[in-house]
């Protein structure tokens, strides 16, 4: 029963694979929940910052802040591409890389030089493969990115922007709309687009300002930039985990389907063999009697 043994081996191997994918699915589910919590926990800070900046900001202040400088013709911009360190997450990294490639092509078509900064092993692997020179790279961002990580990534870029060496900073990341919707997105973090003042939100209050609106904005605009990068980091982690969960769920389901087919084939082969054996015995007995 050579075929039966072969089938048994394959059944065993698919069972083992399914065990692994199921475990990965469960791990990704719990990591995703925690990442999702962090996305939610990051919101109050962003809201508070946005509120205050929009209430203090007025367009006549714009020229005084280097972070709001709108270069007429950008010559050189930085693109930060966030990817994950681990694979087995379906099309997650491929989608991010595709988005980044589209952006780079789009910017370069208008004659802009693009510095690419890559976060994550998967993005790094791709850009190494196509042989593109990278402005910077790092793979030490964990599943729990911190506000410090964001500061490390963007502080140098902010300095370069203020010094006029680069004319814009973009971030490609996976936006976390919901578990099922994590589209790869590219946002411009520099120059800062000042948040719009919400109409009818109590209007402008007469605050006592210490020291004054300009000094407060000078302090808060960099925080705002750092926070947009922090949110991109957190949302990308949540997106990665949810993509991995979906991929592993599909893998587990597929393994189940394959197992059904294999088991059926195996049982059929076993039954056929038994039937044949009985036929042979009966045939043999009949020959003896004859």
């Amino acid at each position: 029963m050579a075929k039966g043994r072969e089938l048994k081996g394959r059944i065993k191997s698919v069972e083992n694979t399914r065990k692994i994918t199921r475990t990965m699915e469960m791990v990704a589910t719990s990591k995703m929940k925690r990442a999702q919590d962090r996305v939610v926990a990051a919101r109050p800070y962003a809201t508070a910052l946005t509120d205050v900046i929009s209430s203090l900001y007025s367009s006549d202040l714009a020229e005084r802040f280097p972070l709001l400088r709108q270069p007429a013709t950008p010559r050189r911009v930085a693109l930060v591409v966030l990817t994950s360190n681990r694979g087995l997450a379906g099309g997650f990294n491929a989608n991010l890389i595709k988005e980044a490639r589209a952006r780079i092509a789009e910017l370069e078509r208008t004659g802009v030089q693009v510095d690419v900064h890559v976060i994550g092993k998967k993005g790094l692997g791709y850009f190494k493969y196509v042989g593109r020179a990278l402005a910077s790279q790092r793979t030490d961002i964990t599943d729990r990115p911190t506000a410090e990580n964001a500061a490390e990534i963007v502080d140098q870029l902010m300095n370069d922007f203020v010094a006029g060496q680069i004319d814009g900073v973009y971030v490609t990341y996976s936006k976390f709309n919901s578990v099922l919707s994590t589209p790869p997105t590219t946002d411009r973090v520099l120059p800062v687009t000042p948040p719009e003042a919400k109409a009818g939100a109590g209007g402008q209050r007469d605050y006592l300002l210490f020291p004054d609106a300009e000094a407060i904005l000078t302090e808060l605009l960099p925080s705002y930039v750092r926070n947009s990068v922090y949110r991109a980091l957190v949302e990308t982690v949540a997106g990665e985990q949810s993509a991995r969960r979906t991929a592993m769920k599909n893998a587990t389901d597929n393994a189940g389907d394959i197992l059904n087919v294999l088991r059926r084939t195996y049982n059929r082969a076993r039954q056929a063999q038994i039937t044949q054996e009985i036929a042979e015995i009966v045939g043999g007995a009949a020959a003896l009697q004859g």
Partner: protein
Amino acid sequence: MLTVSVISPEAVLFEGTTESVVAPAFDGEVGILTGHAPMMTLLGQGELRLGPGAGQRFRIRGGFLQVVDDQVRVVTEHAAKL
């Protein structure tokens, strides 16, 4: 009573009511009691104390503090509970 929230980029560290807030502003400590005029101030580095007898203490650096209608928001990039 004041309604206070202490917010860092990663999470809301404190949300609740207290009688007083003492915060390290950029140029020295600032104390807030109920009925304070609407105010916004930059923060420096130091200890944020909520309530009498320092019921809750945080070490903070940077950010700002906003008071309006007895609502106090402390928004800071670096905050750690003490």
